[in-house]
């Protein structure tokens, strides 16, 4: 009940005005009330006052959410619907005897560093042999395992790392599972960028950020992984990540782990773009390079980072702004696997925006978005590949 109370407390501030109806990418796609934030908030409230019974249907409705925070951003009262959805998912999951098998499996897989590394090797071997694409869609390991990249978990309004005493003696790279599994060569680029800007870079063997667990009713696992990461990085001045989802999760630990150590850890996490701008890094300009930039939900709304990547990109080449750059691409962790039709619909709109710019490639800062955007015919790159 405590979880439901937490969710209820958040949604009680919703006065059902309807502002969120215009920004929810899922409501745009299907137009049914239960899809929009107002609908989800009402469901949570109805669960709390026994108008609706907790059960499979309610979980299904709350599961159908990108956690993209477009609604929170637009809401006049800044109702944190994403947070309420996470609590309510956990409440319903517990009520129904635990997380679904596939989420438990993924959760266990991600909970172990060795299994991620092992799988990373297998995937890179497949890639090297160029046989990963030959696998039928349903079995494509890329596709299945992207379920781990995770949707969002964010806190109060966007908050950036505070740099009152900005020390860069000891800098660490946090390598997210998404980068490690699917984009190891991009992670290498990030590492070399960091090597070039700091005196000493450490790459501790970190644990999963726990976002997939948090999003799918495995809150205990999330807390366990987070505590391990907090301890592992206790000695570093700055922890840099090139994954928007990991970054926003790591920056908002305090909401779930009310310790001083967790708060201190979150304060030291930085996104790659944020860190490079802070360090005064200037990319070399490539005149023939034209690209457009897609804001990951977890970067723009999860961390309030909008201009840093744009600054770096406008130095690196011809940055062409697309309309609706901050609209979710529909990837959202495992969402695109669980709801392929809705994800496709959202991606189709993104495609139109991207193509209208005439840019040769699209740049972003999250492996989750990269996986989703890769379904388009235009090349997709991570920020660290072009700066």
């Amino acid at each position, binding site marked *: 009940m405590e979880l439901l109370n937490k969710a209820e407390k958040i949604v009680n501030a919703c006065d059902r005005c309807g*502002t969120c109806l215009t920004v929810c990418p899922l409501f745009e796609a299907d*137009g049914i009330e239960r899809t929009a934030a107002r609908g989800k908030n009402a*469901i949570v409230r109805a669960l709390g006052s026994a108008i609706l019974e907790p059960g499979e249907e309610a979980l299904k409705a709350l599961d159908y959410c990108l956690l993209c925070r477009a609604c929170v951003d637009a809401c006049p009262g800044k109702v944190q619907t994403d947070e309420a959805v996470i609590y309510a998912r956990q409440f319903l999951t517990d009520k129904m005897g635990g997380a679904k098998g596939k989420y438990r499996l993924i959760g266990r897989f991600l909970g172990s560093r060795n299994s991620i590394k092992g799988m990373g090797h297998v995937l890179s071997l497949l890639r090297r042999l160029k046989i990963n694409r030959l696998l039928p869609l349903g079995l494509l390991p890329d596709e299945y395992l992207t379920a781990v990249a995770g949707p969002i978990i964010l806190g109060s309004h966007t908050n950036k790392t505070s740099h009152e005493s900005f020390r860069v003696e000891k800098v660490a790279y946090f390598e997210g599972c998404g980068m490690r599994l699917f984009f190891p060569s991009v992670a290498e680029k990030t590492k070399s960028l960091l090597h070039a800007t700091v005196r000493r870079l450490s790459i501790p063997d970190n644990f999963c950020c726990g976002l997939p667990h948090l999003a799918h009713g495995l809150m205990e696992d999330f807390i366990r992984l987070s505590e391990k990461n907090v301890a592992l990085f206790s000695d570093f001045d700055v922890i840099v990540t090139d994954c928007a989802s990991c970054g926003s999760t790591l920056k908002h630990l305090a909401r779930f782990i009310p310790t001083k150590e967790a708060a201190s850890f979150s304060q030291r996490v930085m996104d790659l773009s944020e860190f490079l701008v802070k360090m005064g890094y200037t990319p070399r300009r490539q005149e023939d390079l034209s690209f457009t930039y897609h804001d990951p939900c977890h970067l723009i709304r999860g961390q309030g980072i909008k201009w840093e990547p744009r600054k770096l990109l406008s130095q690196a080449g011809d940055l062409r702004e697309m309309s609706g750059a901050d609209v979710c691409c529909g990837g959202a962790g495992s969402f695109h696997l669980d709801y392929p039709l809705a994800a496709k619909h959202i991606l189709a709109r993104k495609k139109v925006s991207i193509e209208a710019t005439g840019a040769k490639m699209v740049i972003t800062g999250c492996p989750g978005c990269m996986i989703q955007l890769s379904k388009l015919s235009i090349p997709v790159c991570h920020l660290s590949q072009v700066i």
Partner: protein
Amino acid sequence: MGERNCLEGELDRFGYSYDASFVSLSARHKPEMVVRPATVEEVSHLLSLAYENEIPVTPRGAASGRTGGSIPLAGGLALSMDRMTRIWELDEANMMVTVEAGARTADVYDFCAARGLFYPPDPASWKFSTIGGNIAENAGGMRAVKYGVTKNYVMGLEVVLADGTVINTGGKAIKNVTGYDLTSLFVGSEGTLGIITKAILRLIPMPKKRGTIQVMFAELEEGCLAVQQMLVSGITPAAAEIMDRICLTAVAKHKNLTLDSSFGACLIIEIDGSDEKELERQTKAIRAIAEGLKAFRFNVAQDSKEAEELWAIRRGVSSAIAALAPDRIGEDISVPRSAFPEVVRRINAIAQRHNLTIAVYGHAGDGNIHPSILCNLKNPEEERRVHKAVEEIFDAALAVGGTLSGEHGIGITKKPYIRKALGDEGVKTLRAIKEALDPKGILNPGKIW
């Protein structure tokens, strides 16, 4: 119509059981089925079935109404217009646009604005509310003082009657006295007389220049007087919005600002015209009036960003107030413009008498006031005081020659008070019209009286 457009699941039906009013969520308000027609033929067919089988039908746009108008009180069908969003025609020669009822007001505005034409009605919900909903509630907005309300722009309607018959009212002729003015009858009928499916809307040329002015006064009364003097002297602002001290304090708190304690009222004015010169002339005249009333501060927005910041204060006021207390009962009384200060005085007295906080903001230019009672309805004793205060606010509005609702409609929430405003005979007349058009009483039952 397809499975996705006839929803029967419990959770889906629950989604169509509430609106943006303070009517509490309730299992009793769930419709038995949600239907989402895409054409007037489908609406007509649904209505003929409903009529034959005496199934209640509650129409719904975006459910952004503030008085419970789209809440199904008797089960039956929730008729969602969200798929009927087509803009049929823009007739530039006659300056009229024909749109389906489910089109969002902002989309219609944008479509016309891109062609230099202006659809002025701008209820606070205009970004998400629908044209059909606006017409059914005769929605107002901030521009009413200069440009009027929704009814002033509806030239004709396509309406599906209770038995499924489709009629067309009005048309593009400016002068039209052929028979009763049915268009006006359906405007503001809150879904109780027919289902509006299409509308012909009148447009005007888009004003070329706009300006925004903010004036601070010591007292609300001076702000109201300023607006009156402006109008009498021939300066008609496109909008004149006023907020009292409680609102200002709430906004300051919400935005973490410090507020000069001498500010008792804030007036935000929009002016428009064909060129800069005209704006300058209006600004000068308004400044003279403000100075005559000892205004503290006179801010003229220098660019669109500054104008946006000033309007953000007004637009943010509702949620800023809402954040001050667990519950907020927002009302929508409307009085003759000259009675604005008097009714606010009475509201303040009511607040004092019942030991409640009542924030007041509203459209000073047209006498439409939104008193907001900040309260905690979980406390039964306080709830009783709140209800008493609401009733007294309505009494105050009626006493100065005003009425219960300016732009939100009666719906469910103001039902208990309608006899006070219209009298038994007045309500009887409404009922006679209702019975003539909907003899079986299937259209949005349980509303208005």
